[in-house]
C-alpha cells in the first residue's frame, strides 16, 4: 500500500507542474470537458430521473402514516438527492464510466509506447496527459451535480403527475419546505473531491499499466474498484467534517 501511495504522490507531483504550452493545455482541457463531462450528461439524465421517480414512489408508499404530513415525500426525496445521490452515488457511477475510460486510454498509450514517445520528446507526459483530465472533470462536475439534482427532482415530479400517489402541488411544497442551501454546497464540495479521486486514481493505474491488452483491462478494473473504495471512504470523512 505504501508503495502505491508513494508512487501516486510522485505522479501527482509531476502532474501538478506548470504546463509547457498553455495553449495546448487549454485545448486538451476543453477536449476532456467534452469527453469526460459533457458525454456523461445522458447517463446522468437517465439515472437521476429514474432514481428520483423511484425514490418518490417508495417514500410515499412507506410513509402512509396520518401523523406524517403529505409533503414529507417531497422533502425526503429532495434531501436524499441533495445529500447522497447527486454527489456520492452519481460519482460512484461515474467512477465506472469515466474511470475505466481514463485508465484504458492512458494504459493503451503506455503499452503502445506513446507515453515513452512523449518522454523522449522532452514532454512531461504526466502533466500533458493527466492534468487536463483532472482539471476538465473538476470544472465540469458541479454542472453534472446540479443537473442531476434538477433531473432527480423532475423524476419525482413526473410521478406526482402520472400517478395518484401524491399531488404535484404537495410534491412541489415538499421540495421547497425547510430548504437548507448548505446541502447543495456540501454536495458540490464532495463531488469536486470525488472527481479528483476518480481522475487521479484512474490515471495512476493507466499510467503504470505494464504488459498487454489483458493488463490494460486489469488496470481499468483496479482503477474503478479503488476509486469507488476511496469515494466511500472520503464520503464518510467529508460528511463528518462538513455536516457534524
Amino acid at each position, binding site marked *: 500500500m505504501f508503495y502505491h501511495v508513494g508512487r501516486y504522490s510522485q505522479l501527482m507531483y509531476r502532474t501538478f507542474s506548470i504546463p509547457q*504550452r498553455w495553449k495546448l493545455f487549454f485545448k486538451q482541457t476543453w477536449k476532456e470537458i467534452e469527453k469526460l463531462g459533457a458525454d456523461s450528461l445522458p447517463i446522468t439524465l437517465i439515472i437521476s430521473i429514474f432514481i428520483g421517480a423511484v425514490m418518490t414512489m417508495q417514500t410515499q408508499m412507506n410513509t402512509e402514516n396520518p401523523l406524517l404530513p403529505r409533503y414529507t415525500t417531497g422533502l425526503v426525496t429532495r434531501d436524499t438527492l441533495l445529500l447522497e445521490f447527486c454527489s456520492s452515488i452519481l460519482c460512484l457511477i461515474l467512477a465506472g464510466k469515466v474511470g475505466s475510460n481514463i485508465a484504458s486510454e492512458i494504459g*493503451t498509450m503506455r503499452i*503502445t509506447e*506513446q507515453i*515513452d514517445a512523449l*518522454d*523522449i*520528446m*522532452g514532454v512531461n507526459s504526466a502533466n500533458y496527459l493527466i492534468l487536463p483530465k483532472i482539471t476538465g472533470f473538476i470544472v465540469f462536475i458541479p454542472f453534472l451535480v446540479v443537473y442531476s439534482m434538477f433531473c432527480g427532482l423532475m423524476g419525482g415530479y413526473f410521478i406526482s403527475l402520472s400517478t395518484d400517489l401524491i399531488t404535484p402541488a404537495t410534491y412541489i411544497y415538499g421540495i421547497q419546505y425547510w430548504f437548507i442551501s448548505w446541502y447543495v454546497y456540501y454536495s458540490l464540495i464532495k463531488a469536486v473531491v470525488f472527481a479528483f479521486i476518480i481522475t487521479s486514481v484512474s490515471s495512476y493505474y493507466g499510467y503504470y499499466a505494464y504488459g498487454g491488452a489483458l493488463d490494460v483491462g486489469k488496470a481499468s478494473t483496479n482503477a474503478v474498484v479503488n476509486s469507488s473504495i476511496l469515494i466511500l471512504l472520503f464520503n464518510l470523512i467529508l460528511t463528518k467534517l462538513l455536516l457534524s
Partner: protein
Amino acid sequence: MIQLQEIRKSFDGREVIKGVDTLFETGQTSLIIGQSGSGKTVLLKCVVGLLDPDSGDILYDGRSLAGMNKADRTFLRSEMGMLFQGSALFDSMSIQENVLFPLRMFSPMPDSDKIKRAQYCLDRVGLKGSYHLFPSEISGGMQKRAAIARAISLNPKYLFCDEPNSGLDPLTSIKIDELITDITQEYKMTTVINTHDMNSVITMGEKIVFIYEGDKAWEGGRDALFESENEKLNEFVFASKMMQRKSC
C-alpha cells in the same frame, strides 16, 4: 557522437546490462544487434534516458547524461528523435498533427511555418497527400514513415530506432532502411538502431555492436562481421539458411 561508459542496469537483483562500453560516431548508422532478451532494448532505453543506468555514464558530444539537470535533459531530448517498434503514433491525431506535435511543443516558429515543416517532413518520407489520415487508416510501413517524419521534424542530432523493421514485409523493410540511411547522411545525425534483422545489418551496419546476455560480445564494421571468430556472434549471424548460403 554518443559515448557509453560502463553502463550497468539490473532489475530485481538480476543484472541485465553488464558494463557496456562503446562509441557511436556522428553521421554514422550504428546497430545494436543480439537475440531477443539479450538486453538491447534496455540498453537503448538507458541511452535515451527512459531508464536510468545503475552505474556508468552516457556522453552526448561530451555532455554527461548523468550530470544533467532537468532543464538540460529537456533540451537534450529536443535534440533526439526516436522511432519505436510499434511506431507509437498518437492515435487521436492525424499524421500531420503527429508530426506537428513536437514542433508545437518546442519550436518558436509561427504556426504557418510549422505546418510547412511538418508537410515537408511527410513529403520527405514519401507520405505526400496523406496528411489528414489517422494512424489506424494507414499501413504499418506508412506508420513507420510517419514516425520517422515525426522523429526528424525538429532536425534532431541523434536518431534512435527500436526494431524499425518489425512487422514489415522485406520490401518495405528495405525501403525503411534506405530512408533511415539517407536521412542520417542528409542531417549528419548520430543514428543508433536496435535490430535483429540481418538484412538491415548487412546494408546499414557501419558500426555493429553485438550484445550477448547483457554484455558487449563483439563490435566492428559489417565487413568484419563475416570474418569474426566470435562463436556467439557466428551463431547469431549464421542462424538462418540464407545467411549460411551467403557466407559460402
